[in-house]
Protein backbone atom coordinates (compact mmCIF):
# COMPACT_ATOMS: atom_id res chain seq x y z
CA UNK A 1 0.00 0.00 0.00
CA UNK A 2 2.67 2.46 1.07
CA UNK A 3 4.83 1.54 -1.90
CA UNK A 4 1.89 2.03 -4.19
CA UNK A 5 1.26 5.53 -2.85
CA UNK A 6 4.93 6.46 -3.04
CA UNK A 7 5.18 5.26 -6.60
CA UNK A 8 2.14 7.27 -7.59
CA UNK A 9 3.59 10.35 -5.90
CA UNK A 10 6.83 9.93 -7.83
CA UNK A 11 4.86 9.77 -11.06
CA UNK A 12 3.16 13.05 -10.22
CA UNK A 13 6.36 15.07 -10.24
CA UNK A 14 7.02 14.98 -14.00
CA UNK A 15 3.39 15.89 -14.61
CA UNK A 16 3.68 18.88 -12.32
CA UNK A 17 6.87 19.92 -14.09
CA UNK A 18 5.08 19.68 -17.41
CA UNK A 19 2.23 21.70 -15.98
CA UNK A 20 4.70 24.31 -14.78
CA UNK A 21 6.34 24.61 -18.20
CA UNK A 22 3.04 24.92 -20.02
CA UNK A 23 1.63 27.53 -17.65
CA UNK A 24 4.87 29.44 -17.53
CA UNK A 25 4.97 29.72 -21.30
CA UNK A 26 1.30 30.66 -21.49
CA UNK A 27 1.44 33.28 -18.82
CA UNK A 28 4.58 34.85 -20.17
CA UNK A 29 2.97 35.18 -23.54
CA UNK A 30 0.49 37.59 -21.96
CA UNK A 31 1.26 40.98 -23.44
CA UNK A 32 0.42 43.04 -20.38
CA UNK A 33 3.58 44.25 -18.71
CA UNK A 34 3.44 43.31 -15.04
CA UNK A 35 5.84 46.09 -14.19
CA UNK A 36 3.41 48.71 -15.44
CA UNK A 37 0.54 47.33 -13.47
CA UNK A 38 2.73 46.66 -10.45
CA UNK A 39 3.96 50.21 -10.18
CA UNK A 40 0.46 51.48 -9.66
CA UNK A 41 -1.67 54.27 -11.04
CA UNK A 42 0.64 57.15 -10.24
CA UNK A 43 3.92 55.62 -11.42
CA UNK A 44 6.45 57.22 -13.70
CA UNK A 45 8.22 55.39 -16.57
CA UNK A 46 11.43 55.41 -14.50
CA UNK A 47 9.70 53.58 -11.67
CA UNK A 48 8.43 51.02 -14.15
CA UNK A 49 11.88 50.42 -15.62
CA UNK A 50 13.27 50.06 -12.14
CA UNK A 51 10.70 47.42 -11.29
CA UNK A 52 11.29 45.54 -14.50
CA UNK A 53 14.94 45.25 -13.60
CA UNK A 54 14.27 44.43 -9.97
CA UNK A 55 12.01 41.50 -10.83
CA UNK A 56 14.23 40.23 -13.65
CA UNK A 57 11.53 40.91 -16.20
CA UNK A 58 14.14 42.26 -18.59
CA UNK A 59 15.97 38.93 -18.77
CA UNK A 60 15.36 36.21 -21.39
CA UNK A 61 12.45 33.95 -20.69
CA UNK A 62 14.48 30.75 -20.18
CA UNK A 63 16.55 32.52 -17.58
CA UNK A 64 13.42 33.67 -15.77
CA UNK A 65 12.14 30.10 -15.89
CA UNK A 66 15.36 28.71 -14.44
CA UNK A 67 15.26 31.19 -11.61
CA UNK A 68 11.63 30.39 -10.93
CA UNK A 69 12.18 26.66 -10.96
CA UNK A 70 15.00 26.96 -8.45
CA UNK A 71 12.74 28.91 -6.13
CA UNK A 72 9.76 26.60 -6.53
CA UNK A 73 11.93 23.64 -5.60
CA UNK A 74 12.36 25.28 -2.19
CA UNK A 75 8.63 26.14 -1.96
CA UNK A 76 9.30 29.81 -2.61
CA UNK A 77 6.67 31.01 -5.02
CA UNK A 78 7.99 34.51 -5.15
CA UNK A 79 6.21 37.66 -4.25
CA UNK A 80 2.95 38.92 -5.60
CA UNK A 81 3.67 41.78 -7.95
CA UNK A 82 0.74 43.70 -6.55
CA UNK A 83 0.43 43.04 -2.87
CA UNK A 84 4.18 42.54 -2.47
CA UNK A 85 3.37 39.74 -0.10
CA UNK A 86 4.94 36.29 -0.45
CA UNK A 87 2.61 34.21 -2.59
CA UNK A 88 3.25 31.17 -0.41
CA UNK A 89 2.00 33.08 2.64
CA UNK A 90 -1.17 34.18 0.89
CA UNK A 91 -1.82 30.64 -0.24
CA UNK A 92 -1.17 29.15 3.18
CA UNK A 93 -3.62 31.64 4.64
CA UNK A 94 -6.30 31.20 2.03
CA UNK A 95 -6.15 27.55 1.12
CA UNK A 96 -7.67 26.33 4.42
CA UNK A 97 -10.77 28.46 3.88
CA UNK A 98 -11.27 27.03 0.41
CA UNK A 99 -10.58 23.49 1.59
CA UNK A 100 -13.05 23.90 4.42
CA UNK A 101 -15.68 25.10 1.98
CA UNK A 102 -14.82 22.38 -0.51
CA UNK A 103 -14.96 19.61 2.07
CA UNK A 104 -18.21 20.90 3.49
CA UNK A 105 -19.84 21.06 0.09
CA UNK A 106 -18.49 17.65 -0.92
CA UNK A 107 -19.80 16.23 2.31
CA UNK A 108 -23.21 17.74 1.58
CA UNK A 109 -23.30 16.50 -1.98
CA UNK A 110 -22.19 13.02 -0.95
CA UNK A 111 -24.60 12.80 1.97
CA UNK A 112 -27.49 13.89 -0.21
CA UNK A 113 -26.34 12.72 -3.62
CA UNK A 114 -25.49 9.10 -2.83
CA UNK A 115 -28.88 8.23 -1.30
CA UNK A 116 -30.68 10.06 -4.10
CA UNK A 117 -28.60 8.20 -6.67
CA UNK A 118 -29.45 4.89 -5.03
CA UNK A 119 -33.15 5.74 -4.97
CA UNK A 120 -33.04 6.80 -8.62
CA UNK A 121 -31.44 3.48 -9.52
CA UNK A 122 -33.95 1.45 -7.50
CA UNK A 123 -36.80 3.34 -9.14
CA UNK A 124 -35.09 3.02 -12.50
CA UNK A 125 -37.16 4.34 -15.39
CA UNK A 126 -40.06 5.45 -13.31
CA UNK A 127 -41.20 8.91 -12.30
CA UNK A 128 -39.05 9.22 -9.18
CA UNK A 129 -36.03 8.39 -11.32
CA UNK A 130 -37.00 10.94 -13.97
CA UNK A 131 -37.66 13.57 -11.37
CA UNK A 132 -34.33 12.95 -9.67
CA UNK A 133 -32.46 13.01 -12.95
CA UNK A 134 -34.07 16.27 -14.01
CA UNK A 135 -33.51 17.74 -10.57
CA UNK A 136 -29.86 16.77 -10.56
CA UNK A 137 -29.28 18.17 -14.03
CA UNK A 138 -30.97 21.37 -12.86
CA UNK A 139 -28.29 21.50 -10.21
CA UNK A 140 -25.57 21.55 -12.84
CA UNK A 141 -27.35 23.96 -15.11
CA UNK A 142 -28.43 26.60 -12.63
CA UNK A 143 -26.17 29.62 -12.52
CA UNK A 144 -24.50 29.35 -9.11
CA UNK A 145 -24.51 33.05 -8.53
CA UNK A 146 -28.24 33.34 -9.06
CA UNK A 147 -28.95 30.45 -6.75
CA UNK A 148 -26.64 32.00 -4.16
CA UNK A 149 -28.54 35.26 -4.23
CA UNK A 150 -31.83 33.41 -3.81
CA UNK A 151 -30.38 31.61 -0.78
CA UNK A 152 -29.27 34.94 0.64
CA UNK A 153 -32.76 36.31 0.20
CA UNK A 154 -34.43 33.42 1.85
CA UNK A 155 -32.11 32.53 4.70
CA UNK A 156 -30.41 35.82 5.47
CA UNK A 157 -33.00 38.42 4.64
CA UNK A 158 -36.47 36.95 5.04
CA UNK A 159 -35.85 34.33 7.68
CA UNK A 160 -32.76 35.87 9.22
CA UNK A 161 -31.42 32.46 10.15
CA UNK A 162 -28.04 32.52 8.50
CA UNK A 163 -25.43 35.21 7.93
CA UNK A 164 -25.12 36.86 4.56
CA UNK A 165 -21.43 37.02 3.93
CA UNK A 166 -17.95 36.28 5.24
CA UNK A 167 -16.66 33.44 7.34
CA UNK A 168 -17.17 34.92 10.81
CA UNK A 169 -19.27 37.72 12.30
CA UNK A 170 -17.52 41.08 12.46
CA UNK A 171 -18.09 41.28 16.19
CA UNK A 172 -16.68 37.81 16.84
CA UNK A 173 -12.99 37.72 17.64
CA UNK A 174 -10.98 35.17 15.71
CA UNK A 175 -9.51 32.19 17.50
CA UNK A 176 -5.71 32.06 17.36
CA UNK A 177 -4.42 30.53 14.13
CA UNK A 178 -3.05 27.02 14.64
CA UNK A 179 -4.08 25.01 11.61
CA UNK A 180 -5.55 27.86 9.60
CA UNK A 181 -8.84 25.99 9.41
CA UNK A 182 -11.31 28.24 11.20
CA UNK A 183 -13.50 25.39 12.43
CA UNK A 184 -10.55 23.40 13.76
CA UNK A 185 -8.92 26.43 15.32
CA UNK A 186 -12.17 27.30 17.10
CA UNK A 187 -12.30 23.80 18.53
CA UNK A 188 -8.65 23.82 19.53
CA UNK A 189 -9.18 27.11 21.35
CA UNK A 190 -12.36 25.72 22.91
CA UNK A 191 -14.27 28.59 21.37
CA UNK A 192 -17.72 27.09 20.86
CA UNK A 193 -19.23 30.49 20.09
CA UNK A 194 -16.79 30.99 17.23
CA UNK A 195 -17.29 27.43 16.05
CA UNK A 196 -21.06 27.82 15.88
CA UNK A 197 -20.75 31.17 14.18
CA UNK A 198 -18.31 29.75 11.62
CA UNK A 199 -20.55 26.78 10.87
CA UNK A 200 -23.49 29.09 10.25
CA UNK A 201 -21.33 31.19 7.93
CA UNK A 202 -20.19 28.07 6.10
CA UNK A 203 -23.67 26.83 5.39
CA UNK A 204 -24.95 28.92 2.47
CA UNK A 205 -21.75 28.91 0.42
CA UNK A 206 -21.38 25.18 0.95
CA UNK A 207 -24.95 24.52 -0.18
CA UNK A 208 -24.45 26.65 -3.28
CA UNK A 209 -21.23 24.91 -4.15
CA UNK A 210 -22.67 21.49 -3.39
CA UNK A 211 -25.33 21.89 -6.04
CA UNK A 212 -23.12 21.15 -9.03
CA UNK A 213 -21.37 18.25 -7.32
CA UNK A 214 -24.67 16.85 -6.16
CA UNK A 215 -25.84 16.30 -9.72
CA UNK A 216 -22.67 14.48 -10.68
CA UNK A 217 -22.80 12.28 -7.63
CA UNK A 218 -26.46 11.41 -8.15
CA UNK A 219 -25.76 10.58 -11.77
CA UNK A 220 -22.78 8.33 -11.16
CA UNK A 221 -24.19 6.63 -8.08
CA UNK A 222 -27.31 5.88 -10.05
CA UNK A 223 -25.45 4.28 -12.90
CA UNK A 224 -23.11 2.49 -10.50
CA UNK A 225 -26.01 0.97 -8.60
CA UNK A 226 -27.80 0.07 -11.82
CA UNK A 227 -24.66 -1.68 -12.94
CA UNK A 228 -24.27 -3.55 -9.65
CA UNK A 229 -27.90 -4.63 -9.61
CA UNK A 230 -27.19 -6.59 -12.78
CA UNK A 231 -24.75 -8.80 -10.91
CA UNK A 232 -25.66 -12.34 -9.86
CA UNK A 233 -24.60 -11.80 -6.29
CA UNK A 234 -27.49 -9.42 -5.76
CA UNK A 235 -29.87 -12.15 -6.77
CA UNK A 236 -28.08 -14.59 -4.51
CA UNK A 237 -28.16 -12.20 -1.60
CA UNK A 238 -31.86 -11.71 -2.10
CA UNK A 239 -32.39 -15.45 -2.36
CA UNK A 240 -30.68 -16.12 0.92
CA UNK A 241 -32.72 -13.41 2.57
CA UNK A 242 -30.49 -10.41 3.22
CA UNK A 243 -32.65 -7.63 4.58
CA UNK A 244 -33.57 -5.26 1.81
CA UNK A 245 -32.08 -2.17 3.38
CA UNK A 246 -28.79 -3.80 4.30
CA UNK A 247 -28.61 -5.35 0.85
CA UNK A 248 -29.02 -2.00 -0.86
CA UNK A 249 -27.19 0.37 1.45
CA UNK A 250 -24.27 -1.88 2.33
CA UNK A 251 -23.77 -4.73 -0.06
CA UNK A 252 -24.86 -3.11 -3.32
CA UNK A 253 -23.72 0.39 -2.53
CA UNK A 254 -20.14 -0.49 -1.74
CA UNK A 255 -19.84 -2.20 -5.10
CA UNK A 256 -21.33 0.79 -6.85
CA UNK A 257 -19.14 3.55 -5.51
CA UNK A 258 -16.08 3.10 -7.71
CA UNK A 259 -17.27 5.50 -10.38
CA UNK A 260 -18.67 7.87 -7.79
CA UNK A 261 -15.36 8.05 -5.99
CA UNK A 262 -13.57 8.79 -9.26
CA UNK A 263 -16.03 11.59 -9.80
CA UNK A 264 -15.54 12.98 -6.33
CA UNK A 265 -11.85 13.19 -7.16
CA UNK A 266 -12.55 15.05 -10.36
CA UNK A 267 -15.07 17.28 -8.63
CA UNK A 268 -12.54 18.28 -6.04
CA UNK A 269 -10.38 19.92 -8.68
CA UNK A 270 -13.44 21.52 -10.19
CA UNK A 271 -14.77 22.78 -6.89
CA UNK A 272 -11.67 24.82 -6.19
CA UNK A 273 -12.07 26.58 -9.52
CA UNK A 274 -15.85 26.59 -9.33
CA UNK A 275 -15.62 28.24 -5.96
CA UNK A 276 -14.60 31.46 -7.65
CA UNK A 277 -18.13 32.75 -8.10
CA UNK A 278 -19.36 31.48 -4.76
CA UNK A 279 -16.41 32.95 -2.93
CA UNK A 280 -17.09 36.29 -4.59
CA UNK A 281 -20.75 36.39 -3.63
CA UNK A 282 -20.30 35.27 -0.05
CA UNK A 283 -16.99 37.10 0.41
CA UNK A 284 -15.38 33.83 1.36
CA UNK A 285 -11.69 34.50 2.05
CA UNK A 286 -10.40 31.62 -0.07
CA UNK A 287 -8.18 30.86 -3.00
CA UNK A 288 -10.87 31.45 -5.63
CA UNK A 289 -11.25 35.18 -5.21
CA UNK A 290 -7.49 35.38 -4.87
CA UNK A 291 -7.09 33.73 -8.27
CA UNK A 292 -9.56 36.00 -9.98
CA UNK A 293 -7.91 39.02 -8.45
CA UNK A 294 -4.55 37.76 -9.75
CA UNK A 295 -5.92 37.27 -13.22
CA UNK A 296 -7.61 40.64 -13.34
CA UNK A 297 -4.39 42.33 -12.29
CA UNK A 298 -2.18 40.06 -14.38
CA UNK A 299 -0.25 38.87 -11.33
CA UNK A 300 1.97 36.18 -12.89
CA UNK A 301 3.53 34.79 -9.73
CA UNK A 302 0.13 34.16 -8.24
CA UNK A 303 -1.30 32.68 -11.43
CA UNK A 304 1.63 30.28 -11.68
CA UNK A 305 1.49 29.28 -8.06
CA UNK A 306 -2.25 28.71 -8.09
CA UNK A 307 -2.10 26.65 -11.26
CA UNK A 308 0.62 24.49 -9.73
CA UNK A 309 -1.28 24.23 -6.50
CA UNK A 310 -4.51 23.20 -8.13
CA UNK A 311 -2.58 20.75 -10.31
CA UNK A 312 -0.91 19.30 -7.22
CA UNK A 313 -4.19 19.06 -5.32
CA UNK A 314 -5.74 17.41 -8.36
CA UNK A 315 -2.91 14.89 -8.48
CA UNK A 316 -3.02 14.22 -4.73
CA UNK A 317 -6.75 13.74 -4.76
CA UNK A 318 -6.42 11.31 -7.62
CA UNK A 319 -3.88 9.29 -5.65
CA UNK A 320 -6.33 9.35 -2.77
CA UNK A 321 -9.04 8.19 -5.14
CA UNK A 322 -6.89 5.22 -6.12
CA UNK A 323 -6.34 4.40 -2.48
CA UNK A 324 -10.05 4.58 -1.77
CA UNK A 325 -10.70 2.37 -4.77
CA UNK A 326 -8.33 -0.13 -3.21
CA UNK A 327 -10.17 0.04 0.08
CA UNK A 328 -13.52 -0.33 -1.62
CA UNK A 329 -12.49 -3.25 -3.77
CA UNK A 330 -9.95 -5.69 -2.28
CA UNK A 331 -9.37 -7.24 -5.69
CA UNK A 332 -7.54 -4.07 -6.79
CA UNK A 333 -5.24 -4.26 -3.79
CA UNK A 334 -4.23 -7.75 -4.80
CA UNK A 335 -3.20 -6.47 -8.19
CA UNK A 336 -1.32 -3.42 -6.91
Amino acid at each position, binding site marked *: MLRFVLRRCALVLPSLLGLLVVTFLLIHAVPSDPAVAMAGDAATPEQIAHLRQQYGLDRPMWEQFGLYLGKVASFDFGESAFSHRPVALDIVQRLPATLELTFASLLLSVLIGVPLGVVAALKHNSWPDYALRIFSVLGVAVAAFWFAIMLQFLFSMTLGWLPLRGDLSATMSRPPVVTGFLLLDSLIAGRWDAFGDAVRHLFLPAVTLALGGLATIVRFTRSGVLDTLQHDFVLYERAVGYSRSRLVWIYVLRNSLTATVTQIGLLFGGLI*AGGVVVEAIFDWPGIGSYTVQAILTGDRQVMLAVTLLV*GAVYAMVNILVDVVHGLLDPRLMGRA
Partner: protein
Amino acid sequence: MRPIFARLARDVPAMLGLGIVVFVLLLAVLGPWIAPYPGDASASHLLRRLKPPSLDYPFGTDNLGRDIFSRVILGARGALQIALAVVVASMLIGVPLGLLAGYRSGWLSETIMRITDVVLAIPQLVLALALAQLLSPSLESAMLALSLTYWPFFTRIVYAETRRLSGSLFVDALRGVGAGTSRIVFLHILPNALSPVIVRATIGLGFTILVAAVLGFLGMGATPPAPDWGLAIAESRTYLPKAWWYAAFPGVAILITVMGFNLLGDGLRDLVDPRIRRSR
Protein backbone atom coordinates in the same frame (compact mmCIF):
# COMPACT_ATOMS: atom_id res chain seq x y z
CA MET B 1 -30.68 3.17 -35.44
CA ARG B 2 -34.39 2.65 -35.22
CA PRO B 3 -34.50 0.62 -31.99
CA ILE B 4 -32.14 3.13 -30.34
CA PHE B 5 -34.48 5.92 -31.17
CA ALA B 6 -37.43 3.89 -29.97
CA ARG B 7 -35.68 3.33 -26.65
CA LEU B 8 -34.78 7.00 -26.45
CA ALA B 9 -38.39 7.87 -27.08
CA ARG B 10 -39.40 6.03 -23.92
CA ASP B 11 -36.81 7.88 -21.82
CA VAL B 12 -38.88 10.82 -20.59
CA PRO B 13 -36.00 13.05 -19.41
CA ALA B 14 -34.07 12.46 -22.62
CA MET B 15 -37.10 13.36 -24.70
CA LEU B 16 -37.58 16.48 -22.63
CA GLY B 17 -33.93 17.29 -23.36
CA LEU B 18 -34.41 16.68 -27.06
CA GLY B 19 -37.47 18.92 -27.06
CA ILE B 20 -35.54 21.72 -25.40
CA VAL B 21 -32.61 21.39 -27.77
CA VAL B 22 -34.89 21.52 -30.79
CA PHE B 23 -36.71 24.52 -29.34
CA VAL B 24 -33.45 26.39 -28.72
CA LEU B 25 -32.26 25.52 -32.22
CA LEU B 26 -35.46 26.98 -33.64
CA LEU B 27 -34.99 30.13 -31.58
CA ALA B 28 -31.43 30.40 -32.83
CA VAL B 29 -32.48 30.12 -36.45
CA LEU B 30 -35.66 32.17 -36.31
CA GLY B 31 -34.68 34.56 -33.50
CA PRO B 32 -34.66 37.84 -35.45
CA TRP B 33 -38.14 37.06 -36.81
CA ILE B 34 -39.60 36.00 -33.47
CA ALA B 35 -38.20 38.71 -31.24
CA PRO B 36 -40.62 41.61 -30.78
CA TYR B 37 -37.82 44.19 -30.83
CA PRO B 38 -35.01 42.74 -32.95
CA GLY B 39 -33.36 46.17 -33.04
CA ASP B 40 -32.70 45.94 -29.31
CA ALA B 41 -29.69 43.78 -30.09
CA SER B 42 -27.74 47.05 -30.18
CA ALA B 43 -30.04 50.06 -29.80
CA SER B 44 -30.51 51.73 -26.43
CA HIS B 45 -33.55 53.56 -25.08
CA LEU B 46 -32.68 55.63 -22.05
CA LEU B 47 -36.25 56.51 -21.21
CA ARG B 48 -37.40 53.01 -20.47
CA ARG B 49 -34.55 51.69 -18.39
CA LEU B 50 -35.04 48.84 -15.90
CA LYS B 51 -38.78 48.44 -16.29
CA PRO B 52 -40.25 45.37 -14.63
CA PRO B 53 -42.00 42.75 -16.75
CA SER B 54 -45.18 44.00 -18.39
CA LEU B 55 -47.27 43.16 -21.42
CA ASP B 56 -45.08 45.30 -23.67
CA TYR B 57 -41.87 43.89 -22.25
CA PRO B 58 -42.70 40.41 -20.95
CA PHE B 59 -39.27 39.97 -19.33
CA GLY B 60 -38.78 43.65 -18.47
CA THR B 61 -36.07 45.95 -19.78
CA ASP B 62 -32.39 46.21 -19.02
CA ASN B 63 -30.02 48.97 -17.98
CA LEU B 64 -30.15 50.59 -21.42
CA GLY B 65 -33.89 50.18 -21.85
CA ARG B 66 -33.65 47.18 -24.15
CA ASP B 67 -36.32 44.50 -24.19
CA ILE B 68 -34.95 41.51 -22.29
CA PHE B 69 -37.40 39.13 -23.93
CA SER B 70 -36.03 40.01 -27.35
CA ARG B 71 -32.46 39.80 -26.14
CA VAL B 72 -33.03 36.40 -24.57
CA ILE B 73 -34.40 35.13 -27.89
CA LEU B 74 -31.61 36.77 -29.87
CA GLY B 75 -29.05 35.32 -27.47
CA ALA B 76 -29.87 31.74 -28.41
CA ARG B 77 -27.91 32.00 -31.63
CA GLY B 78 -24.78 33.29 -29.94
CA ALA B 79 -24.95 30.69 -27.21
CA LEU B 80 -25.24 27.86 -29.70
CA GLN B 81 -22.53 29.34 -31.89
CA ILE B 82 -20.08 29.45 -29.01
CA ALA B 83 -20.98 25.97 -27.90
CA LEU B 84 -20.76 24.46 -31.35
CA ALA B 85 -17.55 26.26 -32.22
CA VAL B 86 -15.86 25.15 -29.01
CA VAL B 87 -17.02 21.56 -29.20
CA VAL B 88 -16.21 21.19 -32.89
CA ALA B 89 -12.80 22.76 -32.42
CA SER B 90 -12.08 20.49 -29.44
CA MET B 91 -13.15 17.50 -31.49
CA LEU B 92 -10.95 18.56 -34.38
CA ILE B 93 -7.97 18.67 -32.04
CA GLY B 94 -8.90 15.85 -29.72
CA VAL B 95 -10.22 13.13 -32.01
CA PRO B 96 -7.23 12.90 -34.43
CA LEU B 97 -4.82 12.98 -31.51
CA GLY B 98 -6.74 10.21 -29.81
CA LEU B 99 -6.77 8.11 -32.98
CA LEU B 100 -3.07 8.67 -33.49
CA ALA B 101 -2.16 7.85 -29.90
CA GLY B 102 -4.47 4.89 -29.82
CA TYR B 103 -3.52 3.25 -33.07
CA ARG B 104 0.18 3.86 -32.93
CA SER B 105 2.24 2.85 -30.00
CA GLY B 106 5.63 3.98 -28.77
CA TRP B 107 6.96 7.43 -28.01
CA LEU B 108 4.45 9.34 -30.15
CA SER B 109 1.51 7.78 -28.39
CA GLU B 110 3.19 8.25 -25.01
CA THR B 111 3.97 11.90 -25.71
CA ILE B 112 0.44 12.67 -26.82
CA MET B 113 -1.11 11.05 -23.79
CA ARG B 114 1.31 12.69 -21.34
CA ILE B 115 0.53 16.10 -22.83
CA THR B 116 -3.14 15.28 -22.58
CA ASP B 117 -2.71 14.47 -18.91
CA VAL B 118 -0.84 17.69 -18.25
CA VAL B 119 -3.49 19.78 -19.97
CA LEU B 120 -6.19 17.97 -18.00
CA ALA B 121 -4.45 18.92 -14.79
CA ILE B 122 -4.50 22.63 -15.63
CA PRO B 123 -7.44 24.17 -13.84
CA GLN B 124 -9.76 24.89 -16.69
CA LEU B 125 -11.13 28.15 -15.44
CA VAL B 126 -7.67 29.52 -14.62
CA LEU B 127 -6.35 28.71 -18.06
CA ALA B 128 -9.44 30.07 -19.75
CA LEU B 129 -9.21 33.29 -17.80
CA ALA B 130 -5.49 33.62 -18.38
CA LEU B 131 -5.94 33.10 -22.10
CA ALA B 132 -8.84 35.49 -22.23
CA GLN B 133 -6.55 38.03 -20.71
CA LEU B 134 -3.72 37.12 -23.06
CA LEU B 135 -5.80 37.86 -26.13
CA SER B 136 -7.75 40.69 -24.53
CA PRO B 137 -11.16 39.65 -23.30
CA SER B 138 -13.51 38.84 -26.15
CA LEU B 139 -15.76 36.09 -27.27
CA GLU B 140 -13.10 34.75 -29.63
CA SER B 141 -10.48 34.39 -26.95
CA ALA B 142 -12.97 32.82 -24.58
CA MET B 143 -13.84 30.31 -27.27
CA LEU B 144 -10.21 29.56 -27.97
CA ALA B 145 -9.52 29.13 -24.28
CA LEU B 146 -12.41 26.74 -23.84
CA SER B 147 -11.42 24.69 -26.88
CA LEU B 148 -7.85 24.46 -25.64
CA THR B 149 -9.02 23.05 -22.34
CA TYR B 150 -11.73 20.78 -23.64
CA TRP B 151 -9.96 18.70 -26.30
CA PRO B 152 -8.22 16.31 -23.88
CA PHE B 153 -11.58 14.80 -22.99
CA PHE B 154 -12.08 13.76 -26.60
CA THR B 155 -8.51 12.52 -26.89
CA ARG B 156 -8.99 10.31 -23.87
CA ILE B 157 -12.24 8.80 -25.09
CA VAL B 158 -11.03 8.18 -28.61
CA TYR B 159 -7.74 6.82 -27.32
CA ALA B 160 -9.50 4.29 -25.12
CA GLU B 161 -11.89 3.27 -27.87
CA THR B 162 -9.14 2.98 -30.45
CA ARG B 163 -7.02 0.89 -28.13
CA ARG B 164 -9.94 -1.42 -27.52
CA LEU B 165 -10.92 -1.68 -31.17
CA SER B 166 -7.45 -2.03 -32.61
CA GLY B 167 -6.94 -5.05 -30.40
CA SER B 168 -10.22 -6.54 -31.52
CA LEU B 169 -10.66 -9.43 -33.86
CA PHE B 170 -12.23 -7.61 -36.72
CA VAL B 171 -9.39 -5.14 -37.00
CA ASP B 172 -6.92 -8.01 -36.90
CA ALA B 173 -8.91 -9.56 -39.69
CA LEU B 174 -8.79 -6.34 -41.69
CA ARG B 175 -5.04 -6.17 -41.26
CA GLY B 176 -4.90 -9.77 -42.36
CA VAL B 177 -6.58 -8.96 -45.64
CA GLY B 178 -4.12 -6.12 -46.14
CA ALA B 179 -6.27 -3.07 -45.41
CA GLY B 180 -4.20 0.13 -45.12
CA THR B 181 -3.78 1.93 -41.82
CA SER B 182 -5.75 5.01 -42.81
CA ARG B 183 -8.48 2.82 -44.22
CA ILE B 184 -8.75 0.87 -40.99
CA VAL B 185 -8.62 3.97 -38.85
CA PHE B 186 -11.08 6.11 -40.75
CA LEU B 187 -13.47 3.56 -42.12
CA HIS B 188 -13.55 1.07 -39.29
CA ILE B 189 -12.24 2.42 -36.01
CA LEU B 190 -13.52 5.99 -36.21
CA PRO B 191 -17.17 5.12 -36.87
CA ASN B 192 -17.11 2.70 -33.97
CA ALA B 193 -15.54 5.22 -31.64
CA LEU B 194 -18.04 7.84 -32.66
CA SER B 195 -20.92 7.12 -30.33
CA PRO B 196 -19.12 7.97 -27.07
CA VAL B 197 -17.72 11.03 -28.83
CA ILE B 198 -21.22 12.15 -29.74
CA VAL B 199 -22.41 11.67 -26.18
CA ARG B 200 -19.45 13.61 -24.83
CA ALA B 201 -20.06 16.34 -27.40
CA THR B 202 -23.72 16.68 -26.45
CA ILE B 203 -22.88 17.12 -22.81
CA GLY B 204 -20.00 19.36 -23.83
CA LEU B 205 -22.38 21.71 -25.62
CA GLY B 206 -24.30 22.34 -22.42
CA PHE B 207 -21.14 22.56 -20.37
CA THR B 208 -19.61 25.10 -22.76
CA ILE B 209 -22.65 27.36 -22.58
CA LEU B 210 -22.33 27.29 -18.81
CA VAL B 211 -18.59 28.00 -18.71
CA ALA B 212 -19.00 30.74 -21.29
CA ALA B 213 -21.56 32.28 -18.95
CA VAL B 214 -19.10 32.08 -16.05
CA LEU B 215 -16.48 33.76 -18.22
CA GLY B 216 -19.04 36.43 -19.07
CA PHE B 217 -19.76 36.80 -15.37
CA LEU B 218 -16.07 37.51 -14.79
CA GLY B 219 -15.99 39.97 -17.68
CA MET B 220 -14.00 37.66 -19.95
CA GLY B 221 -16.58 36.47 -22.43
CA ALA B 222 -18.84 38.21 -24.89
CA THR B 223 -18.58 41.98 -25.19
CA PRO B 224 -21.41 44.50 -25.21
CA PRO B 225 -23.77 45.11 -26.83
CA ALA B 226 -24.04 41.45 -27.80
CA PRO B 227 -27.31 39.96 -26.49
CA ASP B 228 -25.33 37.31 -24.65
CA TRP B 229 -27.02 35.54 -21.71
CA GLY B 230 -23.92 35.32 -19.52
CA LEU B 231 -23.06 38.93 -20.23
CA ALA B 232 -26.60 40.00 -19.35
CA ILE B 233 -26.27 38.27 -15.97
CA ALA B 234 -22.91 39.92 -15.41
CA GLU B 235 -24.34 43.34 -16.30
CA SER B 236 -27.37 42.78 -14.13
CA ARG B 237 -25.34 42.33 -10.97
CA THR B 238 -25.10 46.05 -10.39
CA TYR B 239 -28.90 46.32 -10.39
CA LEU B 240 -29.66 43.42 -8.08
CA PRO B 241 -31.54 42.74 -5.96
CA LYS B 242 -34.12 45.24 -7.18
CA ALA B 243 -34.10 44.50 -10.91
CA TRP B 244 -34.50 40.76 -10.36
CA TRP B 245 -35.90 40.20 -13.84
CA TYR B 246 -32.70 41.41 -15.43
CA ALA B 247 -30.71 38.47 -14.10
CA ALA B 248 -33.53 35.97 -13.82
CA PHE B 249 -34.65 35.54 -17.42
CA PRO B 250 -31.24 35.19 -19.05
CA GLY B 251 -30.42 32.89 -16.13
CA VAL B 252 -33.46 30.76 -16.85
CA ALA B 253 -32.52 30.68 -20.53
CA ILE B 254 -29.09 29.31 -19.65
CA LEU B 255 -30.62 26.91 -17.15
CA ILE B 256 -33.07 25.46 -19.63
CA THR B 257 -30.62 25.21 -22.49
CA VAL B 258 -27.89 23.58 -20.43
CA MET B 259 -30.45 21.27 -18.91
CA GLY B 260 -31.68 20.30 -22.37
CA PHE B 261 -28.25 19.31 -23.60
CA ASN B 262 -27.43 17.49 -20.38
CA LEU B 263 -30.64 15.49 -20.32
CA LEU B 264 -30.22 14.54 -23.94
CA GLY B 265 -26.59 13.66 -23.42
CA ASP B 266 -27.37 11.57 -20.35
CA GLY B 267 -30.09 9.73 -22.19
CA LEU B 268 -27.76 8.99 -25.09
CA ARG B 269 -25.06 7.93 -22.67
CA ASP B 270 -27.37 5.44 -21.00
CA LEU B 271 -28.36 4.09 -24.39
CA VAL B 272 -25.20 3.98 -26.37
CA ASP B 273 -22.69 2.39 -24.14
CA PRO B 274 -22.73 1.50 -20.48
CA ARG B 275 -18.94 1.40 -20.39
CA ILE B 276 -18.44 5.13 -20.71
CA ARG B 277 -20.11 5.58 -17.41
CA ARG B 278 -16.66 5.04 -16.04
CA SER B 279 -14.83 7.52 -18.20
CA ARG B 280 -16.50 10.62 -16.83
